[in-house]
């Protein structure tokens, strides 16, 4: 579905340079992947590349196969087709942010339904169903500010899933939760992604939790180069 070959993203220069190198990564529906690595190892950079919000360096291959056929993402970036990328994001992707990333001016129902509304999809009951499955049905009419951190994270997960995207990305979805809540939220995220046949890729520093919910692990190997810069290489990709 998403195919990466020899994709690089560099920031800074000289000894301040940080590069991410993805020699090879293929994402398929139903996959469950966790990228583990210390902070600063490029997890967020990788996620942003996959989420089509960060442009890859020239060279390499980054393409997305969707119902509309094959899309050369790298070419869209080169052509500055921001709105086309936004459209692909809205249809193909769900993104769970570390802190929920909810809109404070909408209630929970509005937040979850936002991705569906943008696509012009009517309410088919999926908002309520998701809220039930994620155990936040009592919170539908509340503002995010009235929710606990754990509840907000569940709302974030519901929003990422509501329009049934093919690819669900999650950036440290449990980092701000206590261990008990973290395990439950992680479990719900994996269950609900799987139930919808989506590919789930998340980043975490909690190796144990990732293993316990049956995620395949990808590692980021960081190495200092001759010029003093740093390159992180994605390893263990299938």
């Amino acid at each position, binding site marked *: 579905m998403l195919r990466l070959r020899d994709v690089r993203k560099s920031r800074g220069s000289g000894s301040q340079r940080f590069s991410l190198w993805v020699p090879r990564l293929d994402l398929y529906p139903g996959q469950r992947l966790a990228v583990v690595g210390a902070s600063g190892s490029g997890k967020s950079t990788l996620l942003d590349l996959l989420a089509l919000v960060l442009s890859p360096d020239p060279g390499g291959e980054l393409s997305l196969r969707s119902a509309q056929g094959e899309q050369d993402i790298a070419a869209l970036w080169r052509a500055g087709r921001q709105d086309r990328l936004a459209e692909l994001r*809205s249809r193909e992707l769900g993104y769970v942010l570390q802190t929920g990333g909810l809109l404070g001016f909408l209630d929970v129902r509005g937040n979850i339904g936002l991705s569906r509304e943008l696509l012009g999809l009517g309410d088919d009951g999926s908002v309520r169903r998701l809220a039930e499955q994620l155990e936040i049905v009592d919170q539908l009419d509340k503002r995010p500010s009235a929710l606990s951190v754990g509840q907000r994270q569940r709302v974030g997960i519901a929003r990422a899933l509501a329009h049934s995207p093919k690819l669900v990305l999650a950036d440290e979805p449990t980092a701000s939760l206590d261990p008990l809540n973290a395990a439950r939220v992680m479990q719900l995220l994996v269950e609900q992604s799987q139930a919808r046949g989506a590919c789930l890729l998340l980043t975490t520093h909690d190796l144990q939790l990732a293993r316990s919910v049956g995620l395949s692990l990808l590692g980021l190997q960081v190495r200092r180069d001759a010029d003093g810069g740093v390159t992180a290489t994605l390893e263990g990709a299938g």
Partner: protein
Amino acid sequence: MRAGLMARLAWHDYRADWRLSACAVLALVAVLAPLLVLFGLKSGLIGSLTDRLEQDPGVREIVPLGGGRYSAARIDELRRLPEVAFALPRTRQIAATADLYPNRPGPVVSVEMLPTGSGDPLLGALPQPQRLDEVLLSRSAAEKLGAGVGDELLAAFGRLDGGVAEYQRTRLRVVGVLPLAAFQRDALFGRLELLEAVEDYRDGRAVAAFDWPGMQGSGAAQRIYPGFRLYARDLDAVETLRQRFATEGQEVATQAEAIAQVRSLSRNLGVVFWIIAGLGLAGAFAAMTASALAAVARKHRELSVLRLIGFPTAALLAFVSLQALYTGLISLLLGGLAYLAAETLLNQLFMQQAGEYACRLEWHQYLLAAAATLGFSLLAAAVGGWRAAGIEASEGLRDV
């Protein structure tokens, strides 16, 4: 882009962030309401002054100075000028007087006689004398005589014939009384033929129409008039006619100077207004731009999230612009209400004559102000929107 969704999202955010929204609205109303009042005062005061000038026919009168010699054809020529609304020859001043006898006991009233005819601006909607013996009276003459419309009055015209004083009497019928504003002195307005008849009699000639005795033979064909009654079509025509007479060597008295004064007052007040409006609008525009930029900075995280979810650039622009539009609309409503309250108060304070307003805005002026306000709001928002459009989805997402 889904316009309805964006309008709803922008409104939800506008309402949730009501403190910031209220600040923006109040800042705009603080400029808008005084400007509307100023605009209203300008158009009300100037409008009243101009109306007064335009409604007072005396302002448009052009009076020839010194004795002149005009043929009937020459005055007809003047009447045909596009700048002239009304022109009639005058008979000699000395011959244009009449003694009127009141129908009740009282003194004889000596009045001046003025020729009138169709289109006389002094008469307005009053009936014109159709027959030789029909006249209108000025208000002061009518009051001294105790006469009203429909009354018949005895009039006497005198002459000296070879050192012997003679006079003729005739009955005149009053068909109208002029308002005081139209003419202040004692006067009667009659057909030109009446005045010519009196002039003939004074000159010792016989007048067949009244059966007055005298020399036979008519001088009417070559009659020379010493002056004329002439009114310009509008205020602008007064100056044009004044220049025309000046080039012809005919001295005239006009109100051109008074008109020019009102005109220049109107123009200068206009300049004052636009200077104040310009300063106010510049300040308001700067405040609106600052508030749009502040709003974008404040909502950075929300805008990033919208972008991440896949909202296009136009949607982010719309989000910011719509909120500016809401501010503009609410400010217009509040500013309009504040203006109406001020207008009512000012008009009560300054009301001098019915139908005159110290402060007044026409609908099209209010619409113009509304369009300008919304235009400026959107322009200011565009600066913020430009900033918003440049927000990357990956920015600001990870700030806790």
